């Protein structure tokens, strides 16, 4: 499958992911290191090093995961690929779409990005594209809805 053109999520998604790393990992780690000062300077330094190392790993893997995201609109179906450790590729035919969701968290909205989720009658088909610019998300949603209607097939 080389012929189709893969499109990538917005850079805003990477910003969100990095912010999540810092907020959930670096901040508690730093607080913990500060607390460790009470026990001694060596302990505090060790905690700080661990925090820095973990945050670094998380930031790198967030970037790699962001790079792995991609989607391609073909004539009859939508392809979504993602994942580094576990690589996934989903193929969802337009005719099978039951409904399409567009969601955006507070941080997403500030950065003007949204997530488009495709739902079919099967619970296992998990095609979801995060980090689309708001206009692109709306365009994709409307296009999917129109195509889904045109090619609808009974369950």
């Amino acid at each position, binding site marked *: 499958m080389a012929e189709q053109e893969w499109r990538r999520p917005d850079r805003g998604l990477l910003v969100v992911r990095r912010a999540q790393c810092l907020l959930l990992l670096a901040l508690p780690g730093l607080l913990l290191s500060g607390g460790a000062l009470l026990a001694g300077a060596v302990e505090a330094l060790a905690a700080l090093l661990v925090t820095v190392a973990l945050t670094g790993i998380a930031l790198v893997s967030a970037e790699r995961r962001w790079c792995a995201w991609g989607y391609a609109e073909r004539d*009859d179906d939508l392809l979504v690929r993602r994942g580094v*450790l576990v690589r*996934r590729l989903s193929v969802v*035919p337009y005719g*099978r779409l039951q409904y399409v969701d567009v969601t955006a968290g507070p941080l997403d909205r500030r950065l003007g990005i949204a997530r488009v989720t495709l739902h*079919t009658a*099967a619970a296992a*088909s998990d095609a979801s594209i995060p980090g689309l610019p708001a206009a692109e998300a709306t365009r994709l949603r409307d296009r999917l809805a129109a195509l889904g209607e045109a090619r609808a097939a009974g*369950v």
Partner: protein
Amino acid sequence: MSPAPDDWHRLHPLTPLLRGGRVLLLLAALVGQQGLRQGDGLRPAFVGLGSLAVTALAVGVGYVVWRTTRYRLTATELQVESGLLKRRSRRVPLARLQSVDVVRPIIARIAGLAELRLEVVGGGSSEAPLAYLADEDAQRLRRAMLASGREEEVVARADDAVLVQVPTGALVASALLGPPLVIALLLLPCLVAVALVAPAAAVPFGAALLPAYAGVFAVAGRRVLAEYGFSVAETPDGLRLRHGLLDTRTQTIPPGRVQAVRLLEPLLWRPWGWVRVEVDVAGYAGRGEEQSATSALLPVAPRQLAEALVGRVLGGGLPVAAAPVPERARWRAPLSRRRLRAGLDDRHLVTTSGVLTTTTDVVPLAKVQSLRLTAGPWQQRLGLTTLHVDTAGRRLPGAKAHHRDAAEAAALLDELSRRTRAARRLGTVPATRP
């Protein structure tokens, strides 16, 4: 003939009593259990009066429900209205019916009543179960609902061609040739060892094991009760399954509703060449005890017969799952590598897997919802990819072709997306009618 289509009907007048009876049975079981555990907890008279009061309340509530519930069948839908404070009106479009079940719990059977359950896509539970109806009303309603999808009038009703009848001996044997036998074989040496080391401890040890073993036995027993007298018949309305000893159930699956089929061949059944066939329809939600009762298309049968039946249900012969996985897959799946196979033709995908139980999954391409490829870290290292085929069924959510060569899996994905598209186009035309 049947009454005018726009008539509202009530459920059977015995319904409140039956519901009350069920509550009484439940209470009796509860009280019995508590009594066994505590010996003398509460005074019997007090418990008896309390139970009676609760039962009377249940009958009263049942009466109100019965008074406020009504249904009617129109040409295109079933309408059910219920509720006293909060009116609920439900319309079930008949064209969307995935299956129709007539269930007769033992207590309803005694009274000559039955419950009608309809399954439609997306229902969390059975849509608008009608409990209880007189037996003949349930039959008539089912016939009318299934017939409304068809243009022509069905002439003869007695020509239900019974395809398979499962012998009771085989059913009992197949139930025993599972956990009951395995656990007995595991426990027996323990018991013997204890008897040899400390003869005095053997009797209490055995007595302690007995309840655990009885539990295992009860599971097998329940299966036999639910699948007793299993018969599969082909009718103009679709496939009809009948089974059950105490609670009987008649399932009707209209043509072209099957989402996936699975053939199971446990290790212990292999000497006899038996397989179990399970089937999934879009509507069935995976609900505890009913799950095992409704998923079997054939509880036990010789492989040849089972494959013939599956071919009949899905319409046409099945491809042979012949393509093996690469040799290097043994590093990822050392025990099941030889059994991992896949086969594809224009209408079906067949995959096999399993270590102790050989599992064969069949998915009609017209029912495929989405396709996926996944490769975990180990698989990526070995250049392997797993192909998933998703269907709308809840219990058999599609098929997986495990550990295919990465390039082959990509090619298979391309091929499948082409063939499922073609199958879908054909599928939008109503399924073949007899």
